[in-house]
C-alpha cells in the first residue's frame, strides 16, 4: 500500500452512491462494509429511533416513509419555493420546511429539522467509514462529483456536506467529465463522446470533446424525473394488478409491508432481467387475506419481453432527450465517436439496443456503468494528490453549468458568460444608462437559464456610482465577468469615461449559514466525545462484570456441594445461571445497556453463591 494518505473519489448519486480510489495505479471501487459496491443514498430514523444509512434505510423506506429521506440530491442547494423544490414536494413522502431565512430547504427527519447538506453528509460519512474500514486508516480528502447542470449554490452545498462529513473536498467535478475520465484512463483518446447516464432517479446526457487529455463538456441535457425507479414502478403496477385479479381484488398498495417487499422484488427482478431472459418473483406470506384466512403468496414470472413492453415509453423518452441535446449542441449522432453508458439502468438490454439504434454504433462496454463516475473521481483525486508521470497529467476543463449575467432594465436577464463556457474564462460586455443624468447603476449578478431575471439565482449585487452625468445612452459602462478555475466569480463594472470602478467577488452559498455549519460540526464533536466517554464506561463495567463472573465461577463447586447438602431451591440456582449466561452474552456483544440491566442480578447472584458456599462448609469449619 502507498504511504501517501489515501484519497477517494465519491459519486454522490440521487439514488446510489459509490466510493473509489486508485491503488497501485489501478482505479477500483471500494466495497462497503456489507460487501456491496453501491450504497443507497438513503437516510432514515427507524421507528425504534435507530439511525439507518444506505441499504438498511432503503429496506424500510416504504414502511417508514415519513422518516426516510431519499433523493436529497434533488433538494441540495435549492431555494425554497423554487420549481424544483415544489416538484419534489409533490412526490416526496417526507416533510420539507423553509430554512431560517426562508431561502433554502430543510428536511424534517426524526422530529428534527436538518439542512439538506447535513443529510447528504450522513451518506458521505457512511462512505468515508467504508473507505476507512477498507484502508484501515483515516480518510480525510475526497473529490466529489455533481451533475453538470448543478449551479454554484448546489456545488457549494455539496462541499459543505463533505465538510460536515469530515472530508476536505479537493474538487467538485461534473459527473459526465468523471465518467469520460474513467473511460479515457490510460488511453490516448481524441474524439467526441456522449455520456448517457440513466441512473436510479435521473437521466442525464452530456456531450464531451476529449482531446489530448483535455475533457471539455460541450453540452448537457436530461430529465430529472426519469430513472430506474420509474422502471421499478411499472413492474410493481403490473404485479399489483395481476395479484388483485387473481385474489379477488386484494390491493397490495394498501399494505405498506407488502408494498415494500414488492418494490424490493421488482428491483431485483429488473436487475436479473439484464442478465437472463426470465425472472421469478416469489413472495410468500405477502399480505393478509382477511380475518382468519391466513396470508396470500405472490408467484409470478417476468420475461424480458414483458418488461420491454411495460417500459417502452420510458426508453423512448431517453432517446428523445438525447436527440434534443445533440440537436441543441449542433452535433449529429454519426459525429459521436463513442457512447459511454452510465448508471445501473443502462444495463437493460432494451436501453442498450435503443442507444445503438439511435447513435448507429454499439455503446462502450469497457467500464461498469454503476462504477464509472466514482472511478473517474478517484482518478482525479489521485491526479490532484500524487505527482503524475510526465505525459500522464490530466487536465480537466469544466464548464459553467448555467448562463451568468446581470439584471437589465425591464427585469430581464442579460447573459455575459453563456453556459458550457470552459472555465477559467473572462468576458466583457458594454452597457449604458437608461435615464438622463443617471449617476449610479445597480449591478445584480445572476445565474440561470431564464430570460426573466426573477427566475434566476441571484449571486450578489453592488452599486457603481460616480458616473459622469450625461443623457441616457451616452455613458458606456463596461461589465467584466471572470471565473477562476475554482469557480469563483468576479464581476467588475467600470465607467469607461471616468474610469470609476466597482467590483464584487461572488462566493456561492449553500443556504447553510456559518453558525449552522459550526453548530453541526460541534454536535459531531460532542457525539465523538460521547462515544469516547461510552468507551470508558464500557471498560469500567466490563472489568466489574468480569471480576464478578470469575468470583462466581470459583464458587461453583462449593455451591453444588451445598445443593446436595441443603434443601435450597434449585430454581434460584437455575435463575442465577441464566443471569451468568446473559452477562456473558452482553460482554460478547459489547452491549452496555444489557450489562447495565443485568448488573443488579449479577450482584445478587454473587451474594447468593457466597451464601450457599458458606453453607457447604461443615459447621466446625465456619
Amino acid at each position, binding site marked *: 500500500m502507498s504511504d501517501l494518505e489515501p484519497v477517494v473519489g465519491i459519486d454522490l448519486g440521487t439514488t446510489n452512491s459509490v466510493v473509489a480510489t486508485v491503488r497501485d495505479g489501478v482505479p477500483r471501487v471500494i466495497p462497503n462494509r456489507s460487501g456491496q459496491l453501491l450504497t443507497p443514498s438513503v437516510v432514515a430514523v427507524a421507528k425504534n429511533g435507530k439511525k439507518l444509512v444506505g441499504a438498511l434505510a432503503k429496506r424500510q423506506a416504504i414502511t417508514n416513509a415519513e422518516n426516510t429521506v431519499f433523493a436529497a440530491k434533488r433538494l441540495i442547494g435549492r431555494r425554497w419555493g423554487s420549481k424544483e423544490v415544489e416538484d419534489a414536494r409533490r412526490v416526496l413522502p417526507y416533510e420539507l420546511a423553509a430554512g431560517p431565512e426562508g431561502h433554502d430547504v430543510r428536511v424534517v427527519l426524526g422530529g428534527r429539522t436538518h439542512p439538506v447538506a447535513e443529510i447528504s453528509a450522513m451518506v458521505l460519512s457512511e462512505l468515508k467509514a467504508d473507505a476507512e474500514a477498507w484502508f484501515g486508516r483515516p480518510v480525510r480528502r475526497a473529490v466529489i462529483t455533481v451533475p453538470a447542470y448543478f449551479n454554484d449554490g448546489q456545488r457549494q452545498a455539496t462541499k459543505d456536506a463533505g465538510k460536515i462529513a469530515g472530508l476536505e473536498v479537493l474538487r467538485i467535478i461534473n459527473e459526465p467529465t468523471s465518467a469520460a475520465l474513467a473511460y479515457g484512463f490510460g488511453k490516448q483518446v481524441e474524439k467526441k463522446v456522449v455520456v448517457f447516464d440513466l441512473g436510479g432517479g435521473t437521466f442525464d446526457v452530456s456531450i464531451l470533446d476529449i482531446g489530448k487529455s483535455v475533457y471539455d463538456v460541450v453540452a448537457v441535457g436530461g430529465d430529472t424525473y426519469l430513472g430506474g425507479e420509474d422502471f421499478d414502478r411499472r413492474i410493481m403496477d403490473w404485479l399489483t394488478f395481476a395479484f388483485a385479479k387473481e385474489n379477488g381484488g386484494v390491493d397490495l398498495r394498501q399494505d405498506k409491508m407488502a408494498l415494500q417487499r414488492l418494490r424490493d422484488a421488482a428491483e431485483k427482478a429488473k436487475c436479473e432481467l439484464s442478465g437472463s431472459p426470465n425472472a421469478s418473483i416469489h413472495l410468500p406470506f405477502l399480505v393478509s387475506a382477511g380475518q382468519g384466512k391466513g*396470508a396470500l403468496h405472490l408467484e409470478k414470472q417476468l420475461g424480458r419481453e414483458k418488461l420491454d413492453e411495460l417500459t417502452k415509453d420510458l426508453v423512448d423518452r431517453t432517446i428523445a432527450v438525447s436527440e434534443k441535446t445533440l440537436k441543441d449542441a449542433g452535433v449529429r449522432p454519426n459525429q459521436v465517436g463513442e457512447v459511454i453508458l452510465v448508471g445501473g439502468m443502462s444495463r437493460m438490454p432494451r436501453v442498450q439496443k435503443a442507444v445503438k439504434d439511435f447513435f448507429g454504433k454499439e455503446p462502450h462496454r469497457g467500464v461498469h456503468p454503476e462504477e464509472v463516475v466514482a472511478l473517474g473521481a478517484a482518478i482525479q483525486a489521485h491526479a490532484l494528490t500524487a505527482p503524475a508521470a510526465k505525459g500522464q497529467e490530466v487536465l480537466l476543463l469544466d464548464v459553467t453549468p448555467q448562463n451568468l449575467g446581470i439584471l437589465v432594465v425591464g427585469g430581464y436577464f442579460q447573459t455575459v458568460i453563456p453556459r458550457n463556457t470552459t472555465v477559467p474564462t473572462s468576458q466583457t460586455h458594454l452597457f449604458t444608462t437608461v435615464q438622463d443624468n443617471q449617476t449610479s447603476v445597480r449591478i445584480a449578478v445572476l445565474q440561470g437559464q431564464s430570460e426573466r431575471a426573477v427566475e434566476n439565482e441571484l449571486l450578489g449585487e453592488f452599486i457603481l456610482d460616480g458616473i459622469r452625468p450625461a443623457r441616457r445612452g451616452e455613458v458606456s459602462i463596461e461589465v467584466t465577468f471572470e471565473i477562476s478555475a475554482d469557480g469563483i466569480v468576479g464581476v467588475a463594472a467600470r465607467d469607461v469615461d471616468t474610469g470609476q470602478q466597482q467590483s464584487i467577488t461572488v462566493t456561492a452559498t449553500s443556504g447553510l449559514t456559518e453558525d449552522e455549519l459550526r453548530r453541526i460540526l460541534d454536535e459531531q464533536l460532542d457525539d465523538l466525545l460521547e462515544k469516547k466517554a461510552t468507551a470508558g464506561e464500557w471498560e469500567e463495567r466490563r472489568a466489574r462484570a468480569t471480576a464478578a463472573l470469575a468470583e462466581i465461577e470459583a464458587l461453583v463447586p462449593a455451591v453444588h456441594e451445598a445443593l446436595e447438602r441443603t434443601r435450597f431451591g434449585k430454581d434460584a440456582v437455575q435463575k442465577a445461571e441464566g443471569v451468568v449466561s*446473559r452477562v456473558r452474552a452482553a460482554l460478547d456483544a459489547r452491549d452496555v445497556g444489557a450489562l447495565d440491566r443485568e448488573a443488579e442480578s449479577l450482584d445478587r447472584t454473587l451474594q447468593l453463591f457466597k451464601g450457599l458456599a458458606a453453607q457447604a462448609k461443615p459447621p466446625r469449619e465456619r
Partner: protein
Amino acid sequence: MAGVAELIDRGVKLYTAGRIREAREAFQRAVDLDPSNEKARAYLLHIRDAVPAVTPFPGTLPPAPAAARPSSAALPPIQPAAMQPPPTAASRGADRPNPAGVAALAAAVELAAQEDAHGEFAPSPWEDGPAGAEIQLEATGGLDLQAVAEKSDLRPLVPEGAPPPAAPERPKSDVDVWLSAAKELFALGDFTGSLELIEKILQVDPDHGEARDYLRHNEATLVSMYESKIAPLTRTPRLAIKPEEVMWLNLDHRAGFLLAQIDGTVDYETLFALSGLPRLDTARILANLIAEGVITS
C-alpha cells in the same frame, strides 16, 4: 420436591388442559405444603366451584360416572369463567366481592378432602352401584330414564305443552379458555406458560384484539422475555430451512415480511429497526421463528 409456586403453576396448566382431577391434586398439595397460602387455597376453592359448572347444558345428558370414562380427555369442557384470578390485595376491595372469604377457604379445603372420595363430580348413584351397572330399577320401581339413555340411543321425549327449552348457553371457545388461562399464569409469574397460550391464540387468530391488548399491557416484561429467547441481539440470523420450504410454514404476513428481511446480513437489533412493527411484535415473531427452527443464528 416441587415448591408451592410450582404446584400452583402446574395446577393452572392442568386445569387449562382440562385435567381437573390432577389440577385439584396439585392445588391440594400446595395447600398441604403451605396451609396459609391464599392463592393455593383460592384455587382449590375455585376448582371446587368449577365442578357444578360442568353441569350439562340443557338438553344434554349428565356426565357418565368416572368409572365409565376411559380417560380425562373425554371430560366435558370446563367453563373457564368459573376460574377467577387469585385474590390480590386490590381485588379484595369492596368493588369486587370475593366469595372466597377466609371461612369459605377453610370450607373449600374441607370439601376438597371429601371430594377425594367421590372423584371430580358430585356424588352419583352410579358410584354407589356396581361399576358398569345395567339399567336398574329405582327403589320406587320407576325406570331411571337417564340411565337408559346413557346405555342406549333412547332420548326422553319432551312432554307436549312443555315450555320450549332455553337456548343453550354459548360454549366458550378454546381461544377464550386460553386467554383466561394466560392471565392466570401471568399472575402466577409463569410468563412462559402465559405466552405459550397467547401464542396459541394468535396462531388461530392473528388479530385477536384482547390477546394483542394483553401483550401490549405487559409489554416490558414480555419484550424482555422474548428477547431472552433471541439474545444476544447482535447476532445475525439466517434461514435454517431451504427457501422453497418457507411456503409450507404457517405464517401471517407480518412474519412473512420479517422473514423476508432475514438475508444473513442484518443482525437482530437491526431487524427491530427494519421491521416497522412494534418491538413486542417483532420480538415475538423472531422468537417464534427460532423456536420453530425456521431461523437460526
